[in-house]
């Protein structure tokens, strides 16, 4: 189970996977869906990885291999727990 707390995604061991730090403070409304199921950022034109269609293992693998990858997280993902 991945944990989300204070704009940071952690793996099941508690190690940081990704600190969400978009300087433009984008929301879901600012993203356009691509044909591959990921998103395009209308501001910086980068690909945004849509984690809602990935498994926990796939999310971890993607972020470990490309830590600078921008991501969009749906906090209702069954593999993500929001920690308050």
């Amino acid at each position, binding site marked *: 189970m991945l944990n989300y707390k204070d*704009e940071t995604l952690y793996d099941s061991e508690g190690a940081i996977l990704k600190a969400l730090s978009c300087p433009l403070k984008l929301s879901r409304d600012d993203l356009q869906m691509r044909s591959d199921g990921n998103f395009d950022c209308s501001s910086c034109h980068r690909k945004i990885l849509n984690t809602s269609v990935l498994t926990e293992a796939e999310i971890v693998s993607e972020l470990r291999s490309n830590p600078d990858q921008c991501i969009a997280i749906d906090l209702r993902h069954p593999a993500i727990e929001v920690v308050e």
Partner: protein
Amino acid sequence: MIRKRLLELRDFAGSGRIDLCSINGVIDVRELPKALTCLDEYHLIIASMANRIKNFVIVYPQPNPALFYEQSLFREIVEPNRLMWVKEHDYKYKTPDRWEKLATKQFYVRPRTLGLVWGAYLLPDDIQIGERVYVEELIEDVHLHGNTLATDGIAVWTGDSLEFEEEHWDKLRERKYWKVG
């Protein structure tokens, strides 16, 4: 005089306000003049505007079950013996070795609604059936998420009532779950 104007609202994240820019570009709606919640307001409006506004629609707001929340009163059994109201999701921090629960009570996010029997939206005299209007101050309690209420809305005048377009609130509800970075 009620003027028709283009509205462009900026979204204040978590505020419950509609972001017209992200929903449908800038859209052309007429803003309703006011929402009333007591007879004094109604009489004041009529006196000040020399009866130019005669149309209004009365609503009877009901508490929204999703907006009740529980709090308990805890007493610290060691120094400094504080009393504290605590929300349900924080109960786990008030451990029995230090805190004693005295009472539990239901609260409502918008206390005004509990004492409000009726409210009224003022309507322009020339409003047309099917016309879309922007309501800046909602009388009803519309739940978005958590303890957040919708503060405004877009509605269509049916001739008898204002039917609000839920899709704008659905976008605010959906936004809460997505994080980008």
